[in-house]
């Protein structure tokens, strides 16, 4: 018997659970901004869309609860009214649920961490069309298994995200982007927690955030010039290495930009699928088999490379 089991799920979530249903193959459509990650869903799958809307934003708690179909634009506009943000740094028409299902962080991960660490609670619709709640609405919580982290990056194959509660951060007083040709690794070592250091083999871009005096003092340590913002990222190609392995990159005929200190390389070449070990693959298949025995959730997409 529950006294207040995480608050009742709103009507919209119940409607979405009916829409997802319990039998035929479904695929969840968000903003289609990262639609090709994990491969296209089967044509047979019926398209469903997650509910939209910001259902509660409590500025003093620094938490926001919204439908998974809410766009980043709507979310950031609401939060900006209270000088808050959720640093997803993805296309404004991407949806919260889509960004989390894909599980890729934005270019300020260096400072703000992986996007999965911003998730407090998730309600998803499982393969039986039932609502499952995991995590909790408070900013800190270790009650039960951490299904929220598992759902991030699961491409909707373990459940369709319906409602998400996120931790918000205060918007920095100042944000400055600088650029130049210095060594990106030296720059990273010299700064205290920069928000982003990007490098294409020749040119470096640095994002500094905080109160103005700190941003100025940090900028003064570098021989860089002010620029509008980050560079355009080349194409959809994305690969991941250990941060120190970025040193072996060099300017060549491909177009790439690397996230120093993180280990992401954006490029115009399609990314090669990475392998998982046999043991991990079998754990991952077990999860899929248990949570969606008939493979009806987002069929065709692959989280575990074949």
């Amino acid at each position, binding site marked *: *018997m*529950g*006294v207040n*089991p*995480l608050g009742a799920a709103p009507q919209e979530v119940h409607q979405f659970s009916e829409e997802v249903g319990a039998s035929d193959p479904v695929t969840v459509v968000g903003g289609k901004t990262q639609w090709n990650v994990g491969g296209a869903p089967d044509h047979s799958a019926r398209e469903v869309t997650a509910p939209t809307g910001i259902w509660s934003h409590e500025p*003093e*708690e*620094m938490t926001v609860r919204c439908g998974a179909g809410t766009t980043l634009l709507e979310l950031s506009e609401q939060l900006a009214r209270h*000088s*808050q943000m959720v640093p997803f740094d993805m296309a404004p028409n991407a949806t919260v649920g889509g960004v989390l299902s894909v*599980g890729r962080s934005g270019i300020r991960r260096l400072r703000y*961490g*992986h996007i*999965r*660490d911003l998730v407090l609670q998730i309600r998803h619709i499982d393969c039986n069309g*039932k*609502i499952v*709640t995991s995590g*909790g609405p*408070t*900013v*800190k919580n*270790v*009650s*039960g*298994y*951490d*299904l929220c*982290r*598992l759902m*991030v*990056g699961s491409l909707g194959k373990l459940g369709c995200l319906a409602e998400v509660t996120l931790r918000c951060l*205060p*918007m920095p007083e100042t944000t400055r982007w600088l650029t130049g040709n210095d060594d990106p690794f030296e720059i990273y070592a010299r700064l*205290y927690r920069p928000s982003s250091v990007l490098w294409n083999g020749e040119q470096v871009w640095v994002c500094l955030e*905080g*109160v103005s005096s*700190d941003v100025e003092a940090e900028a003064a340590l570098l021989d860089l010039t002010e620029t509008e913002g980050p560079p355009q990222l080349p194409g959809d190609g994305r690969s*991941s*290495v250990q*941060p*120190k392995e970025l040193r072996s990159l060099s300017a060549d005929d491909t177009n790439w930009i690397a996230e120093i200190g*993180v*280990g*992401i390389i954006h490029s115009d070449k399609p990314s090669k*699928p990475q392998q*998982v*070990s046999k*043991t*991990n*693959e079998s*754990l*991952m298949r*077990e*999860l899929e088999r*248990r*949570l969606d025995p008939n493979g009806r959730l987002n069929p065709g997409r692959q*989280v*575990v*490379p074949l």
Partner: protein
Amino acid sequence: MQISPDGNLLDDLRSVLGDRVRDGDFELGLYGKDGSVLEGRPSLVCLPVNTDEVRQIVKICREHDRPFLARGSGTGLAGGAVPVGDPVIIATAKMNQILEVDLENRIAWVEPGVLNLDLTKELTPQGFHFAPDPSSQQVCSIGGNVANNSGGPHCLAYGVTSAHVAAIEVVLPDGSVTLLGDLAAEPPGYDLRGLFVGSEGTMGVATKVAVRLTPNPPAVRTLLLDFPDVRDGAATVSAIIAAGLIPAALEMMDKRAIEIVEAFVNAGYPTEADAVLLVELDGLPGGVEHGVEVVRSVAERHQVGNIRVAADNEERELLWKGRKNAFGAVARIKPDYYLHDTVVPRGKLVEVLEKVYKIADAYDLIAVNVFHAGDGNLHPILAYDSDEKGVLERVHAAGRAIVTASIEAGGVLSGEHGIGLEKRDYMGMLFSAHDMATQDLVREAFDPEGFANPLKVLPSGSRCSDSFGQHVPDGAWV
């Protein structure tokens, strides 16, 4: 009541570990307890020195149909390391090497038995630290931190353990060894690492951990604010966060806590105050000074008494000493204590604190509050004397009432100590039967037969495979 371990199990384990298998009465008793008030009894205790030995122990356990239980320092407060179902204990105390500090990747590879503070001490000269800092950091292990997804005062700004673990080598319940997560930025597949962190030893044994290193802040300021009324202290907490400031730490102590701590450490805590806030700001100097001003002006709007700013590192350490020794200091009023760990929305702190005092009164117990106020993480301590007849029933009943009050206020069961044995039967207060069954499906993907730390986290009714008994054994509630 104790089933003596069958001879073959002992022989088989000895053939791998020699005298690092313990079956003496004294040691079995010692490993029957952790930092909670619960107690059980293991069948045997093993002290492996490397991953391969852990793997062999798990294999032998399986051959003998015996569950196993990983144990770090035994400081857990939810009974996670208390043996039920006659398990073999795999204690990580002898796996305590820092294997590699990789500054270029800002990663350290450590064995699970490395103590939290030992790692930070090793890193300090190089300008880094391991951010999770449970108040038990002098004695708790990194393996335990990973298993419990532990927090600590500075997790307000830096996040809990999960955000600071890149990869974990694990001996799975079937005896295979694997690496969950990776040093590369985006490991392929589902986030098994994230799932393992916080799984309280029920998904296997962590044998190596790659933790992330955090650079030490260039500037730090520590403030002690006192309030004539605890309500103003709590309102200040909400108002600081609402002003857009996330301090590195924001801790609160109530009147009774101040009195006992001051008598214990003489840190100059104001004993006439109703509550104090210990606030730490860190980062670049401009942001820190700005933070100090925000805290000052918010506190002044909330009837603050004095604001003491630590003048130097020595004073800062003294102020923290008071906070970090609070639990030990409770022994000055009563020999035993029972500590709860719920989280409530910050805006409900006052309301729930008042309920905690009422509940303690109703059950004739003493409540002391020292807690991570910045994230609404309450730690009500119920002090008692176990020699008093029937006192434990009162302690448990009061504990349940506190958990209920927290959940009614929109909170959760545990902020950082975990569910373990102590709170597993409360899980139904927060989650539906279907939520818990789903969690169990996930656990089962790692351990279908329930060999790893059986009977923890999920109440027995929600599990599909409780092969080692149904209930907390009678003797467990000591």
